[in-house]
């Protein structure tokens, strides 16, 4: 559910949306979203001083609030 918003935003930010891959890793208390993008797109999802990556985390956390789950977003090259 949450992944959809994250996926939409990440795909819209990059040059190669086909290479975006998001996997959901469930732990006891938390869910981690592992975001993989093309190497050339890494800067676009991290942003200056990590501002884009932080905004993605904030948005994903807010969207997860109604499920009362802790979420993490990890960006992997």
């Amino acid at each position, binding site marked *: 559910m949450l992944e959809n*918003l994250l*996926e*939409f935003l990440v795909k819209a930010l990059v040059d190669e949306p086909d290479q975006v891959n998001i996997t959901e890793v469930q732990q006891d208390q938390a869910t981690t979203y592992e975001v993989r993008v093309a190497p050339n797109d890494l800067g676009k999802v991290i942003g200056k001083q990590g*501002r884009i990556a932080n*905004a993605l985390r904030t*948005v994903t956390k*807010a969207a997860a*609030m*109604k499920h009362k789950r802790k979420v993490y977003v990890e960006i992997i090259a």
Partner: protein
Amino acid sequence: MSELQEDTEAAHSSENAVALSEAELAALKLVEEMCSRSGQAMEANVVSAQGEYLTIALVGEDVPATWGRSGQALDALQMLLNAILHRHNPSEVRIMLDADNYRQRRRELLQNYALQIADEVKQRNEECELEPLPAHERRIIHTALADDPAISTYSEGNEPARRVVIAPRQ
């Protein structure tokens, strides 16, 4: 349906029919797409188009609890949408997102806060630096105090830590 209701509805639809430029329509389309793909019960409503700002309210069942509670999540989503919008074309349009009337509540809060701090600055005859605020919120502070002959305001520092200073006018 009463006449009054009909009138209000007519007024609403004519408001929504505000003629949007092509760039503004592109921005609206982006927010609408985000809503429909978000997996949440939400829709995009145009509130106003003033200058470069296109204000769009998110409405729907999931909106108040998710986006209306704190400005942080709303500002983050807004920042991402603007980054996406400006990626290919240097559009002049800036998306301003609202949810559950957060912007209006925040505006009133900031205006009151500005007046309160300005009073203190006058009493102490000493300038006061506020906490970092985003550009559109700094503007609310500047505007709120623009007509006060005893006060001047300016901003200091670099984004995202740029802050307003309220000072006695020399």
